[in-house]
């Protein structure tokens, strides 16, 4: 293949060129910024500018059809205090917190398990986490309808014990299981990444110094995997509140999350200013949690190892 020969040739010349160029003054590579430009323009036009428009719309007055008429009002935010919305916010935050905490605990234990295996086996275990992670979100969700629903395998097992007509669809238990299932792999990756960079001899040293299992975790592994744990928290907490498919399919839409409210306001009620205000709440919650995580990472407790 010509390409491979060129690559090989270029590699040999590379070392020579570098030696020559290192002597002369370093020339800044041309066109580097130009190459980054399409990506930056895409983000500016398709993410940043639209987000500013949402922020603007959240203060806009709605016409009778829910369109934007301009103007400036705080009414959209005032309406969020209505129990219809505030109840959803509290429920979403509560469920997202619960999901995050459980994902972190299970994610931590699973990551610790993977890290403790021999290097060769770690790749395989990681693959086992990667496959569900990339599996279609809807497939991962509707599988639970079959498993937990009436006539499913769980109902079948309970039927043997004389419990008939069992179904967890729709229920909040099913919603919770669906959320846990969706976000667990997301939580495992960053925690595993942090744990993998911990020097294995630290654990041995701590054990030799008389640390119990709990002591090793509390004083060594937990503090050192903090960046990964906090990263996992960020990747779980905010996205959980934006989910709308799971509450509809597994919960029957009885207890909506913030995501459901946004979808309903935009696609059914066509009330764009209200939808924008609810979206801003999600965005503000995201900034708050990012700030809190930034703060937590800045002050590492010195009582670690």
């Amino acid at each position, binding site marked *: 293949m010509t390409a491979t020969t060129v690559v090989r040739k270029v590699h040999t010349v590379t070392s020579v060129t570098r030696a020559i160029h290192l002597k002369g003054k370093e020339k800044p590579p041309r066109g580097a910024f130009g190459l980054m430009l399409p990506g930056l323009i895409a983000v500016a036009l398709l993410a940043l500018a639209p987000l500013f428009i949402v922020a603007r719309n959240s203060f806009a007055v709605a016409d009778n059809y829910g369109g934007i008429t301009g103007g400036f009002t705080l009414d959209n935010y005032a309406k969020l205090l209505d129990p219809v919305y505030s109840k959803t916010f509290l429920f979403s935050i509560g469920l997202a917190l619960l999901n995050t905490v459980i994902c972190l605990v299970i994610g931590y234990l699973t990551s610790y398990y993977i890290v403790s295996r021999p290097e060769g086996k770690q790749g395989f275990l990681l693959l086992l986490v990667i496959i569900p992670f990339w599996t279609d979100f*809807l497939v991962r969700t509707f599988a639970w309808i079959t498993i937990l629903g009436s006539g499913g395998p769980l109902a079948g097992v309970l039927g043997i014990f004389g419990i008939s007509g069992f179904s967890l669809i729709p229920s909040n238990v099913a919603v919770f299981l669906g959320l846990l299932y969706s976000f667990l792999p997301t939580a495992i990756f960053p925690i595993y*990444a942090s744990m993998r960079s911990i020097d294995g001899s630290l654990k041995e040293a701590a054990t030799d110094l008389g640390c119990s299992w709990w002591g090793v975790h509390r004083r060594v592994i937990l503090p050192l995997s903090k960046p990964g744990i906090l990263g996992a928290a960020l990747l779980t907490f905010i996205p959980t509140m934006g989910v709308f498919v799971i509450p509809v399919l597994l919960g029957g839409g009885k207890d909506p999350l913030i995501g459901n409210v946004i979808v309903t306001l935009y696609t059914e009620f066509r009330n764009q200013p209200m939808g924008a205000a609810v979206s801003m709440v999600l965005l503000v919650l995201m900034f708050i949690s990012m700030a809190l995580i930034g703060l937590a990472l800045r002050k590492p407790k010195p009582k670690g190892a």
Partner: protein
Amino acid sequence: MDKLVNGIARGVFVFLYIPIVAVIVYSFNASGSSSNFEGLSLKWYAELFQDGQLLSTLRTSAIVAVITATVATAIAVMFALGSARYRGRGKGLYLAAIALPLIVPEIVLGVALLSVFSSAKIPLGVPTLVLGHLIVALPLATLVVISAAAMLDPSLPEAATDLGCTPWQTFTKVYLPLLRPSVIAAWLLSFTTSFSNIVMSTFLSGVGSTTLPLKIYSSLKTGITPSINALGALLILLTLVIVLTVGVNQMRRILVDSRS
């Protein structure tokens, strides 16, 4: 304690595969209801391929995903090569900017784009779907290529020029062969991101541009059918093929190493 952790972790792996196994098993169930198993059958798969509506949404999803993946990968490769060579100020800021759509809740990005399109009176359809999917696929594709491009020797372009390569030849004969695994990975992962996207599509699809996930979602609202399990099993197979093509080592670099 370690024994308890091992037990929990094994339980987690079982938990992760219960739904996947359930979908595959029930897709072969000859009986129409999930309560009884009447032997193996491929009839639900056959039913899928006779559903004209379903096939047309599959076509829409495939078209959108191919365009999205190609554009996202092209932009990602340019960005990665640019950032590997960039020595000026603000590099951290540019990298943060490209990763921004990963952190902002997707649903907010979706309504944000919908607001733009509706105020600019742009009709919703395949182009708006592509733009929406592009912004969620781009950060991912970029991270994939960046981690590979950063490992390349920075004096490669000069060496290639000394050998008489034009900038385009440097790209096609030096960079592209070296980056090929990560370019393929970026394309495949962008493709699945777009193909399985439901959040962006909820807001950005128009009449006649219903995607496959939207069609699955709306039919699930009325109840689950055995043919949906067959479709799910095929999508699981697609995931498996993509994950194995990208390879464990590269996956690990993308999902684990880029975070530490």
